[in-house]
């Protein structure tokens, strides 16, 4: 193909302008905080999200529904082997959930009860403190978030979490996902994951999946808002939190 100097300059000039405009648009659109901040208008917001577990109403059947709902929505693999299992929410007896408060003369009703445990979304999260890549961090609404695409799989957060709330993908989790949810990402081998208080659902104006499935046994709300349901319960009921003496200030409360 023959082109003269004039034509060449025309094409070169035009493509440069298109390139600059395209690049500029990309920079604008993809700028950090631009895409992310486009929340839907019905998004739920809080200063500090918190959860109350009404352990009397949270019976085993109820708990199973909560766990099932969470694990299905978040593509959590079902791996039977306790060494490599991945779990976001599960049941533990009192002595495991509250080992520092364990008491051999505990009331039988408490001894027999099992407690729903998940990430405590601590106000001072040790996991976020130690993460060398900021792949886990505390959001402004108090949620301790996890970016599985930035995680390098060093597992420092697992050593740091005093609640055993974090799971590592010791193998590719995808073959172990029973019924996949195409709206939520699956994880790869070699990254850490955990409960995120359903940050993605809150953004759509939905309550966390477990709360929705709990028939009122889980109460979710803004701890910083003294008029919230959560605060009303805390004012009127005796609640406990896990390993409070460690100073992590958990956002999950248990009515016993």
């Amino acid at each position, binding site marked *: 193909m023959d082109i003269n100097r004039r034509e060449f300059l025309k094409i070169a000039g035009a493509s440069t302008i298109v390139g600059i405009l395209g690049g500029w648009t990309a920079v604008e659109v993809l700028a950090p905080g631009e895409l992310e901040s486009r929340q839907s208008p019905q998004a739920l917001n809080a200063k500090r999200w918190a959860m109350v577990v009404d352990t009397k109403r949270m019976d085993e059947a109820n708990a199973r529904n909560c766990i099932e709902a969470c694990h299905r929505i978040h593509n959590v693999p079902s791996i039977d082997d*306790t*060494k*490599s*299992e991945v779990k976001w929410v599960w049941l*533990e007896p009192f*002595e*495991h*959930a509250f*080992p*520092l408060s*364990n008491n051999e003369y505990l009331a039988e009703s408490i001894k027999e009860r099992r407690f729903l445990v998940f990430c405590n979304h601590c106000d001072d999260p*040790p996991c976020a*403190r*130690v*993460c*060398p*890549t*900021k*792949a886990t961090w505390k959001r402004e609404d108090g949620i301790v978030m996890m970016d599985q695409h*930035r*995680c*390098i*799989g*060093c*597992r*420092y957060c*697992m*050593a*740091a*979490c*005093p*609640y*055993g709330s974090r*799971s*590592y*993908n*010791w*193998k*590719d989790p995808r073959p172990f996902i029973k019924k996949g949810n195409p709206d939520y990402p699956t994880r*790869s*081998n*070699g*990254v850490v994951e955990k409960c995120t208080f359903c940050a993605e659902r809150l953004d759509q104006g939905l309550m966390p999946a477990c709360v929705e499935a709990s028939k009122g046994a889980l109460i979710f709300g803004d701890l910083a808002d003294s008029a919230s349901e959560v605060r009303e319960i805390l004012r009127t009921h005796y609640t406990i939190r896990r*390993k409070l003496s*460690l*100073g*992590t200030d958990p956002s999950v409360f248990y009515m016993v």
Partner: protein
Amino acid sequence: MIERALTGSKRYWEWIGILFVLSAVGMMTYLVQRFSGAESTGLSRDVSWGLFIGNYTFFVGVAASAVIVVLPYYVHDYKEFGRIAVFGEFLAVAAIAIAGLFIFVDIGQPLRSFNILLHPTPGSPLFWDTIILPVYMALNVLIAWGVLEAEEKSIPPCGWIKPLIYISIPWAIGIQTVSAFVYAGLTGREFWNTAILAPRFLVSAFASGPALLIVMCILIKRLTGFDPGKKALGQLAVIVAYSMILNLFFIVLEFFSSFYSGIPSHTQSLEYLFFGLDGHGMLVPWIWTSVTLAIAGTALLVVPRVRKNDAMLAAACILVFVSVWIDKGFCMVVAGFIPSPMATITEYVPSLFEVIITIGIWAMGFLMLSFLYKIAISVKEEAII
């Protein structure tokens, strides 16, 4: 200078060949682990660090111990260490390479490692580790290379080496302190959450590193025409002995504050490690082996006659080295995870995969060390002639 590593006797190449094969087997095994997932390790949700991270900690200590020869020689002008300083520095270089490789094989997404630099997090000890370990390696490469090159040309070393040497001294203490901070700052892991973890790491480093250096020097003396000097090794042996005594003393201190206060969260890991907890005691025989070797090695080293006999000295140093490796390179990491945050006990046994990869990384480190030592020895042999 590097060409000196490329010529050698048949025996030299046989040794290199063995190390090369072991490294290759380790690397292949790592690739299998990489693509099938870390399920091939013995690690679990509860014990999420094991053999690899233990070895990393141990070899950072070996690297830091170069300061034991550098400080007396360059700062206090202790001439005896002049013949072994470069061997200590090269040992540090290889040890950092080993430590780095252990981190690399441990993490789940090694190709994302640069995220540590891309999103710098000064609050994380691992971020600092990533910065200071390569710098320490570079310092030792520059110092040892510079000094050796000057020796080769029979001229005094360049002036810029002196400040690097002075920087490398606190830097050595720094790398081991930061690796202690990786553990000591964790919430709810009382076994590690002790202010003397860094001092313990340092004294065990000052025992294990020089012990290895002594063994290396005795081998060099036997196998080559270069004699590192009896007096230097004797002096190093005294340092190993005292460091080991302090190491044992620090463990006694841990026992006192844990068991006298009697707070269960403080005693449980120690109980698991030394006596077994709730019927679980996989590490008990290991830690007592370590204690026995420590006492035997130290007892031998305090006897002047042993320090003067090469074979006995090497044997005593091997006891110390193995003892510290068992304690710090394995038990220390695992015991910190037991009991779990849920007060349950999951034990850990390294898998065959982990063992083969570990041997492979050791071989890679020794491969590097062999090349570096070959260069240093051939320069020094010529200097004698």
